[in-house]
């Protein structure tokens, strides 16, 4: 208690004019009443966990919102060297994970990444984070996985050399994804930036063919990111007749600037991304396009957005149909016989298996047939001591093969084929290779690097450097929608993304998706909840009834809690819109 005695007023004059105590209540340390203690704890936003490439999504959106796209790009480049590419071709699982989708519509993260990737080009050089190690790494294949591994290894101080079998780097990005989805100039810019970090890319050199495997022996480590280039066979008669193409060959040819003569009617067999890419290219070449897929739309592996764009462009997709035989005249395609299917029990992928319906055969005329039912890797030439599994290179969760200095990633080693996952595998491999080169037990540090609970790792956490590391997310537990205080958010429509008119698309390979204007992007960024990450909204500071939350100045980045007076009432926790505080039992 206070030593001060109560004041007894003797005259009117000495009394205050109104009800005020001149003494303070500071002596009353209400913190002693506390049995629960609030703590600021940044947690993992669902988008960050949802990004297979391990981007700090919430972080770059925060910077875009603040009007600092340069720093947003820097932040992405700490993890992912291909933001302009990903901002175009990634199927954005981050958006599926976004908590905002339970409220109104998810943030257009994909497009925001593109905005960050497209500005300030060429990107500002990120500092090489470590001194030169003198270690060399051979990387086979310059697709997204190989490029990502090379980029991070160079920034870690090693000397990566990338061998590319084709004339230009980029792998599937260069030769598989059509110009209307990913302009070559965008890809080239990002590859040039990767090269500028100290990466050597040698093109037209196919390891195992004009470069013998033994040439790789001097390298301290090898990363196999070969990709998958062999189209699966249909297993039906006449499937190699004149006028039958593979999706990959067709897309390759278009990527090289050719316009193959498809004739009037083109039939595509398959339901994956190469099938839909092939269909959309064929439409642009003026052919009438029919796609046949043996399951239903639900089971289609192609990205849903690509499928709906294809439909808009006039591609006709027929589900539950499988090819029986190619019809020919003088070994030249004239059509195809197909039969209807129905869905049976699920297969090992969990999708329902198509079962042929007897006597349902029918024929369709065609001038060109494009087979695109999936690709496999060509790995037969690899030394036998590198183990295989299910037709892929066998790796552990860090990308290491049965040979401890040889690592593998991307499509050739993974069952799921997409750019973001390939980038993620390149990052894991870069860190694992670095640990191997420095004789560090990667398994011991791996858990600290994973973003959320899905296993994608953060390079900046591994290096303990950079912005992403500074804003270290302390808890891997992902923030759920139910944990947010929605009173502080109002429903706001997702910004509409401009696309090229259908008329303009046909007959041209101009980019379809036109992105957002900088103003719309900023508005879109402002919709972000910042789940689990304190963005200094001041709610805790404003609501604390004991003025126990302190900030030193209006631009203070962090708050302190004055435990002398914090009663542990929990109002700050309750009023935090984004679940970036926790309440813990007093010890």
């Amino acid at each position, binding site marked *: 208690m206070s030593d001060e005695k109560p004041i007894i007023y003797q005259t009117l004059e000495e009394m205050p*004019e109104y009800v005020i105590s001149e003494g303070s209540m500071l002596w009353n340390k209400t913190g002693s009443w506390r049995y629960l203690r609030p703590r600021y704890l940044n947690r993992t936003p669902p988008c960050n966990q949802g990004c297979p490439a391990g981007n700090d999504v919430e972080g770059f959106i925060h910077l875009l919102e603040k009007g600092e796209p340069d720093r947003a790009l820097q932040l992405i480049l700490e993890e992912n060297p291909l933001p302009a590419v990903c901002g175009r071709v990634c199927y954005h699982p981050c958006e599926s994970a976004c908590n905002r989708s339970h409220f109104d519509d998810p943030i257009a993260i994909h497009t925001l990444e593109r905005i960050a990737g497209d500005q300030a080009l060429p990107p500002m050089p990120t500092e090489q984070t470590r001194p030169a190690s003198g270690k060399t790494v051979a990387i086979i294949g310059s697709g997204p996985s190989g490029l990502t591994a090379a980029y991070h290894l160079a920034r870690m101080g090693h000397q990566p050399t990338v061998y590319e079998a084709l004339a230009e780097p980029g792998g599937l990005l260069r030769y598989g994804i059509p110009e209307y989805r990913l302009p070559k100039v965008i890809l080239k810019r990002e590859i040039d930036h990767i090269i500028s970090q100290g990466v050597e890319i040698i093109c037209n050199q196919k390891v195992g063919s004009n470069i013998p495997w033994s040439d790789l022996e001097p390298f301290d480590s090898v990363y196999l990111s070969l990709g998958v280039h062999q189209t699966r066979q249909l297993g039906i008669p006449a499937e190699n007749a004149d006028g039958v193409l593979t999706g990959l060959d067709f897309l390759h040819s278009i990527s090289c600037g050719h316009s193959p003569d498809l004739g009037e009617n083109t039939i595509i067999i398959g339901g994956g991304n190469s099938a839909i890419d092939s269909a959309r290219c064929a439409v642009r070449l003026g052919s009438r396009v029919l796609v046949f897929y043996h399951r239903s739309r639900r089971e289609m592996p192609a990205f849903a957005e690509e499928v709906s764009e294809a439909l808009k462009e006039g591609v006709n997709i027929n589900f539950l149909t499988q090819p029986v035989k190619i019809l020919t005249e003088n070994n030249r395609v004239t059509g195809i016989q197909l039969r209807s299917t129905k869905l049976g029990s699920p297969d090992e992928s969990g999708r329902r298996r198509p079962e042929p319906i007897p006597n349902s055969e029918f024929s369709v005329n065609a001038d060109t047939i494009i087979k695109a039912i999936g690709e496999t890797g060509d790995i037969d030439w690899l030394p036998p001591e590198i183990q295989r599994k299910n037709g892929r290179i066998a790796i552990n969760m860090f990308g290491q093969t049965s040979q401890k200095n040889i690592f593998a990633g991307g499509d050739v080693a993974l069952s799921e084929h997409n750019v973001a996952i390939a980038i993620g595998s390149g990052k894991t491999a870069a860190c694992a290779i670095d640990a191997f080169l420095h004789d560090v037990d990667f398994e011991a540090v791996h858990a600290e690097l994973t973003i959320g609970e899905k296993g994608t790792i953060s390079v900046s956490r591994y290096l303990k450097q950079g912005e992403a590391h500074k804003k270290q997310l302390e808890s891997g537990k992902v923030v759920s929608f139910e944990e947010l205080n929605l009173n502080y958010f109002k429903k706001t429509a997702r910004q509409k993304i401009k696309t090229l008119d259908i008329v303009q698309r046909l007959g041209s390979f101009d980019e379809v998706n036109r992105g957002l204007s900088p103003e719309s992007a900023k508005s879109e960024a402002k919709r972000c909840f910042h789940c689990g990450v304190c963005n200094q909204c001041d709610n805790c500071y404003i609501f604390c009834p004991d003025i126990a939350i302190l900030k030193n100045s209006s631009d203070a980045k962090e708050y302190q809690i004055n435990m002398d007076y914090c009663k542990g009432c929990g109002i700050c926790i309750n009023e935090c819109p984004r679940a970036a505080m926790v309440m813990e039992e007093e010890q």
Partner: protein
Amino acid sequence: MKKILMGNHAASWGVKLSRVKMIAAYPITPQTHIVEELSEMCGDGRLDAKFLKVESEHSAMASVIASETAGVRSFTASSSNGLALMHELLHWAAGARLPIVMVNVNRALSPGWNIWADQGDSLAQRDTGWIQIYAEDNQEVLDSVIQGYRISEQVNLPVMICYDAFLLSHTYEPVDIPNQETVDEWLPPFEPENFLDPDNPKAFYGLVMPDNYMELRYRLQQAHEKAKTVITEVGQSFGNHFGRSYDILETIHCEDAETILITSSSITSPARLLIEKQRKEGRKIGLLKMRMFRPFPTEAVQQILRSKKKAVVIDRNCSWGKGGIFADEIKGAIANLTDAPQVYSFIAGLGGKSITPALIEDIVNQAEESNKPQPASVWMGLKPLN
């Protein structure tokens, strides 16, 4: 700068020019335009103030009590049932001696639902400790809001500026808007001696035992006594600076008059016309406009009414079970004069019924033709009995 403004926007301009830093309000007809305009001023940056949307008038008053306690010049506005909902906190604002300025647009209380002019709402708050000023036209609305801050911050009492629904609130008149520099020269920033400050903590509004409560309330009454002088001084100082003087009341032709017509708010304007007309007819009549109702200008009213024959009071209000409130207050003020006039009390214009010059003339004639006032207020302008 002269602009054609509705009364409500004249109030908004007064608030803006007073550099108010915090506005909390809940909409109610016929007040809503005031805070709507202020929210736009805050929104587009013309006014650097925090605009707080609240869920009721009770919260609006609670919020400005809080912000004024934190040393921030604050404003709110309300009307009728909204003002009634604030009642408890009106006592608090005055007891806490906070210089809040509020506009109340005088509107009838319900039922029956009525949104038109009637002073019953603010007069029902007579005993809450607020200064009450009744404005006659839109210029006076704007000027009174600015004066309101200077008055309230000198005497530490909240000020309610009142004016008639629709007759002023929604009616456009030419208003001279002083420029900001001129107002800044005259109205200093609000810098209270004591305010909520984490760096210098003090406790406010605590328990006061019987040994001190009455003394504090005596201080409140003293502050009202002081306010009478302050309001006069502020009105004169305003006149020196802006060219428009104000006082606690206004007299027209009262010196040699035998009958004094007493009005408040917008009723004064048609009354002015009538007085001029009757003066031309040679009648010894004067007009007393009651601008300040709380504190009540007892001494000034005594001075004016001493040795007059008749005082005729028009009330757009009624204290149920008694009668016209201004009339009653005037009777109270002159009760101990040996040469007090007769007081004739008339009630007119409730719920927005028109008070025309003809009706005012009826009232004056009826009073002049009587020998003795009725014991109760006389209701004017009612429909015929049958």
